[in-house]
C-alpha cells in the first residue's frame, strides 16, 4: 500500500492531503513532505480524509511533525480523521497532542455562539 501526498497552498497556510496508509514503509516519505512545510512557518493542515489506516509508526511520524511544529511555533491541525483512526489515536493518547479540524470547528462555533 502506498501513500500519496499533495500539497495545496492558500492565504492562511498550507494543506497537505494524504491518501493511502501511513505505516512504517510510507511514513518516511510523509515526513519528508511535511518537514519542509513546517519549516515554512505557516499554519499547516493535514487532511487525512483519504487515509484508511495509520500504524504505530505512522502515529509516531505525525507526532514528530507535531513536535517539530511546536518547536517552530507553527500550528498543525489534523482534518478528516476517520472513526477508526480517531479511536486508535484516542486509546493510545496520540489524539491528546493534536488539534483536530472537528474540534477547531466546534470551538469556533461555540465562540461565535457566545459572542451573540
Amino acid at each position: 500500500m502506498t501513500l500519496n501526498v499533495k500539497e495545496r497552498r492558500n492565504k492562511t497556510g498550507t494543506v497537505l492531503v494524504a491518501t493511502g496508509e501511513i505505516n512504517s514503509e510510507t511514513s518516511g516519505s510523509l515526513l519528508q513532505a511535511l518537514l519542509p512545510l513546517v519549516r515554512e512557518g505557516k499554519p499547516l493542515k493535514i487532511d487525512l480524509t483519504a487515509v484508511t489506516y495509520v500504524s504505530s509508526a505512522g502515529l509516531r511520524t505525525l507526532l514528530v511533525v507535531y513536535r517539530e511544529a511546536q518547536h517552530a511555533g507553527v500550528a498543525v491541525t489534523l482534518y478528516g480523521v476517520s472513526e477508526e483512526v480517531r479511536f486508535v489515536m484516542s486509546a493510545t493518547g496520540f489524539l491528546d497532542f493534536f488539534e483536530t479540524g472537528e474540534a477547531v470547528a466546534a470551538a469556533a462555533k461555540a465562540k461565535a455562539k457566545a459572542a451573540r
Partner: protein
Amino acid sequence: MSETRSEQVLRVDAYPTHEVGGYRVRAGKPFPFGANVVPGGVSFSVFSDQATSMTLVIFKRGEPEPMAELEFPEEFRTGSVFAMTVFGLDHENIEYGYRADGPFDPATGHRFDARQVLSDPYARLIAGRDVWGVEPDRSRGYQYRSRVCLQDFDWGDDTPLGIPAEDLVVYETHVRGFTRHPNSQVSAPGTFAGLREKIPYLKELGVNCIELLPVFEFDESDNPRSNPETGEHLFDYWGYNTVSFFAPKAGYAATGRYGMQGDEFRTLIKDLHAAGIEVILDVVFNHTAEGNEQGPTISFKGLDNATYYMLTPEGYYFNFSGTGNTVNCNHPVVRNYVLDCLRHWVADYHIDGFRFDLAAILGRALDGTPLPNPPLLELLAYDPVLRHTKLIAEAWDAGGLYEVGNFPAYGRWAEWNGKYRDTVRSFLKGDPGVTGELATRIAGSPDLYSTRGTAASVNFLTAHDGFTLADLVSYNDKHNEANGENNNDGANDNNSWNCGAEGPTDDPGINALRTRQMKNALAILFTSQGIPMLLAGDEVARTQQGNNNTYCQDNELSWFDWDQVDENAELLRFTREMIAFRKRHRELRSTAHPTGRVRDNLGLPDISWHGERAWQPDWSSESRLLAVARCGTGDDDVVYVAMNAHWESHDLELPALPGGRSWHLFADTGAEAPHDIRSPGAEQELDNAGKYLIGPRSVVILVGRTNDHDDFDTP
C-alpha cells in the same frame, strides 16, 4: 537547528560487516538484551549459557512460516550472549523468535530442542494473543511471537507521584473486570482505554493508588477446564501465568490488534498520574506459564532451563508455587533478569510500585531453602532506578514459607498483612478472644513491624483471592462449583459469617445486618494504621455468589457491575466519606507505631484504649467491644473509634477532652442512612457529651474538636 534534527547521524556501526542467509548483518551489542532498533537495523541479543548454537527466526507479521532463519556466527557471541544487528528490516512488520540448540538431558537440567521457536524473554511486545478470548490457531508452531517496538512514548511532564506510602489508599482491580460488564458505558469495555474512562470514578472515590492484577502477557486460553453446569470453557482470567515479562497484555488493549498495547497502557498510566493516582503492578516472578515437565516450552525452558528454574537433583521441577515450576530467583542471571524487568516497567512505563505474588519464593536459595539475606530482595531494595518505588510482598508461598512480619525488608519492603485480614474478620463475626489482637492490628501491627513502621503493613480485609466483602457477610462456606473442581479449590479458612442465611435473602433484617457489617469492616479498615487496600467493587457490595476463587471466571461473577453504583449508593457514599476522613486525619496515617505516651500539648496519649468505661478496655476473652482514641502527630483533633462486634448494644462512657473540645459524631454504622456517616468537617456535636449508646454489631467514630474547626490536613 531544526534543519539538522531530522538528519541521520552517520555512525560506524550503521554499516553491515557480514551476510547471513541473504541478510546484511554485523555483530550486535550484548546489552541491552532483547530487540532494539538501531541505525539502519535491529539489534538482537539473547542469553543462553549452555546453547551450542543460536538461530534468529524472523517472520513476516502474521505469516505461519519464517521468512528468514539466521544463525548467529560464532564471532557474534560474547560470553554466553548471542548478539547480532540485522539491517533492512521493517521493524513494525516482523515477528521474531529463537531456536536454541544444545543438550536435551533433563537429568542434568537441560531441555534444548532446536525444533522449537522460542519467545525472547526480553520481548517488549508479544503477538499471538492480540484480542482477549479469541481462540488461537494451535496448529501454529510458534504461539507467542516476539515483536520489535520503539520506546519513544511522549510522556510530556509526567513524573512519578511519590505519594508517601503511609498516605496511600490502594484499590486492587483487574484491567478487564473493571469495565468488561456491558453496563460499564465505556467505549472499549475490558481494556486499558476503558479503565482510563473510569478515572473520574476512582478520583471521586478518593483512592490514590490502583493495584492491577497481572498485566504481563499471559494466555487466557490455557485453562483446560469447563464449567460443569454450563459446559462453557473457562479462561485463565486472573493471569497469574506469565508468558512474557516485558510485554503488556495485548488482549487488555483496545489497540492490541494494531500492536499498540504499550502506548495504550502508558496513556492510562499518564492520565492516572494526572489524576493523582499511582499505579502498582501485581507481578509474578515465582513461576511461569511453562509449568512442569508436562508443560509447554515457550521461552526459558528451551533457552536455559537449568538457569531459570529450581530443579531437583534428578532434574525435576521444584514446585513452591503450587503451579508446577519455581523460578530460580536468586540465581545471579535470573535476579538480573528480574531487576531488568522491573526497571523496564519503571523507566518505560512510569510504574510506581510492585506487589510480588508469593514473594517468599524470592527469598529462597537455588536449592529452595530460605536464605537469611536474599540477594534478590536486597538488590531490588537498593536499585537506583527502583529506589522510590513501592515494593510490597505477599510474604508467603505455596511451599509453606510464611514470612508475614519477617520478610527481609532492607528498610523498603512492605507486606500484605494476612494477620490483619484474619484478625479483623474474626472480630467482625464475633469470635471470642480477639480484642487484644485487634488492638495490635489496628495500631499498625507493632508486633510484626516494630522496626519498619506502620507503612510496612498493607491492611486488607479482602483481595482478588478470596471472598469479596459482600460475600464475606453472606456466606459461611465457599461455593466454587462453577470452577469445575468439585468445590475443592480456594481457601477454606475464610473467617466469614453469613449473618443468618447462606447467600441472597429477602429477609430485611439479615440484609440490614450485612450492610452494617460491611460498613463496620470499612470503618475499621480506614481508621487502622498501615496502608489500607480496598478490593474493587467492595464499595458497592460486589458479589461473586460465594465463589472465593474466581481465577477462571471471565463473566459477571468477576466483573464490576456498574448498576451497583446506583443500587448500593449508600455503601459507596459510606466508603467515600471514610476515605476522605482518613485523608483528613494525620494521626490515622502516622508512620510511627503509637506508644501510649503523651506526645504533644493536648495532654492525651497518642493512643488510648477504652471499653464501656473510658480508660478501661476489656481485654477478657468474652469481650467483643473495644474503643480506641488517637491524637497528636500534628492534628488538634482526637479521633475515637468504638468497635462493637457484640450482638447487644452498650453504653459507652466517653473520655473527657481537653482545651474546649467536644465530641462530634462522624459515623455510626448502627444508624440509618443518611445518618450513618457525615462528611469530614461536618460532624455533628453530641448532645450528651459524656455518653454514647453503641448499637449491636456497630462501629461509631467520633471526632473530639473545637467548634471553630477548619484546619484540615489533606494530603
